[in-house]
């Protein structure tokens, strides 16, 4: 490591006689780590469970956070358009891809204690660093817009006016930040994120054919025709599980939580559990809208409220209300996690304080970036006549297209002996990561062909 002059003076809270500076943030993090150390020293089943409880968080949050408004709408559209078939195992595959990618951020964050943006700037310099930041910021802003669209649409089902829904969501975001404590914030958002599983009872109300689901999982059939619409749904489903903000968020959250290399195993379990929960919610959303497919009801360009209304004859008033609430929750949790990923990245690059453990006076820029970005996205949703459906489409597609460059940074960092030491990726992890990159680029190119030359797509499909 090289010594540099700090851009800003450290936030001195306690200056010891030995000249070591300790900040408020250090003390809070040390408190959390004390709990982990004490629990780890104990033996038995209950202490192991408590250790897991203490260390889970970033993985579940990132996975359920990515089950956001546009993602749930994408799953709903998939079920309504294609029913039970190819996309059931495909969605499971996308979550396995997400696991492969996010596991790398666990190791990177635990081994370096640094956020993703900071490492990119340090190791690759500002030229490439700014490219990655621009990708992240544009993607995050557009995604935030779609989250507020989901919030508006979800609450709109209950007759809540758009301005009240959007403003209320901003207040919830601000209240969550008032804890000024990473641990409390994480537990609050985890509790909210678990509400994503509300789609499970909604799916059960739709009486899914579990035999058909099992057959689809084993055979990947029936296959959909290769059309422009299929490719768009394919891309939207990939973009619903693997996106750049997830890399930045999980690594920064792991550094903020204070995880170390001893915690990597639990971090992996946290990520796998998050992926399992998120894939269950995603499949449930898809199954919930299958009645629309079976009754040949067109659902193109449906927003959340319209899905809920269309489903009401099949799943009842309560089912439809739960569906709309689920869409609201998906947007709300994602607003919190995505705006936090932007604030982390900004703080790391600008070398400003960046932690959810910061009191307001010490983390003004961190909280300001977080709230201003969310407020700007919220304001855009309220502009009359803005093409909201187009924005949702753009966001899903851009997320997939921006992933290969983002994954290249991650791949190189996690294979960098100088920063990772013994925790560099093993060959099997690199093979899986390259597989994910190939799938992402292949899907992107297929999308390009479908747009530029739909006839060529028909030829490919005919073979």
């Amino acid at each position: 490591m090289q010594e540099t002059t700090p851009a800003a003076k450290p936030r001195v809270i306690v200056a010891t006689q030995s000249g070591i500076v300790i900040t408020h943030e250090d003390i809070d993090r040390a408190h959390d780590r004390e709990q982990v150390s004490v629990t780890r020293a104990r033996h038995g089943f209950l202490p192991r469970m408590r250790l897991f409880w203490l260390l889970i968080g970033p993985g579940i949050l990132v996975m359920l956070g990515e089950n956001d408004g546009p993602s749930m709408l994408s799953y709903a559209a998939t079920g309504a358009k294609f029913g039970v078939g190819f996309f059931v195992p495909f969605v499971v595959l996308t979550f396995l891809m997400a696991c492969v990618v996010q596991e790398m951020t666990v190791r990177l964050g635990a081994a370096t204690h640094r956020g993703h943006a900071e490492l990119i700037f340090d190791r690759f310099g500002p030229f490439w660093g700014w490219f990655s930041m621009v990708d992240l910021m544009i993607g995050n802003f557009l995604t935030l817009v779609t989250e507020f669209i989901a919030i508006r649409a979800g609450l709109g089902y209950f007759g809540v006016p758009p301005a009240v829904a959007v403003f209320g969501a901003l207040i919830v975001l601000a209240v969550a930040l008032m804890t000024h404590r990473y641990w409390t914030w994480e537990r609050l958002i985890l509790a909210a994120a678990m509400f994503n599983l509300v789609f499970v009872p909604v799916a059960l109300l739709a009486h899914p054919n579990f035999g058909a689901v099992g057959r689809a999982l084993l055979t990947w059939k029936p296959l959909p025709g290769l059309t422009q619409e299929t490719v768009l749904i394919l891309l939207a489903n990939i973009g619903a599980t693997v996106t750049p903000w997830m890399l930045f968020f999980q690594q920064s959250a792991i550094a903020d939580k204070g995880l170390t290399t001893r915690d990597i195993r639990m971090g992996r379990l946290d990520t796998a559990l998050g992926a399992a929960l998120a894939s269950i919610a995603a499949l449930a959303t898809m199954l919930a809208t299958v009645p629309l497919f079976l009754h040949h009801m067109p659902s193109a360009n449906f927003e959340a409220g319209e899905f809920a209304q269309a489903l009401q004859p099949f799943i009842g008033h309560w089912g439809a209300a739960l569906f709309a609430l689920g869409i609201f929750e998906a947007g709300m949790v994602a607003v919190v996690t995505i705006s936090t990923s932007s604030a982390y990245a900004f703080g790391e690059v600008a070398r400003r304080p960046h932690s959810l453990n910061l009191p307001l006076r010490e983390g003004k820029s961190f909280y300001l970036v977080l709230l201003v970005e969310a407020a700007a996205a919220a304001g855009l949703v309220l502009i009359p006549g803005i093409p909201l459906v187009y924005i949702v489409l753009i966001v899903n597609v851009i997320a997939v297209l921006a992933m290969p460059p983002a994954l290249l940074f991650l791949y190189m960092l996690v294979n960098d002996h100088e920063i990772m030491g013994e925790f560099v990726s093993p060959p099997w992890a690199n093979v899986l990561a390259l597989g994910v990159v190939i799938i992402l680029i292949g899907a992107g190119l297929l999308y390009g062909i479908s747009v530029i030359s739909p006839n060529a797509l028909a030829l490919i499909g005919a073979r």
Partner: protein
Amino acid sequence: MGPELRAAKSGMHGDVSGDELNSVMTALEPDQLISAKEKYHFPRRQLTGGETIVFWALRVYLVFMLGVVVFQLWTAAAPR
């Protein structure tokens, strides 16, 4: 919160004893301290020729594909 950390937090802006310092230093790894993170950064690495080509190739891919997205939106929005 342990007694040492509680004391340290309540004694904001003051000096702490060796015991209190030890408590924080035991709980955190040295490079987890904010002062260490602000002072020390990983050095920049030099990209090889092959790596630079891959970086640029993926950048060109992204810009081209974003052009495709704009094209799709333009054709979808154009009056038929």
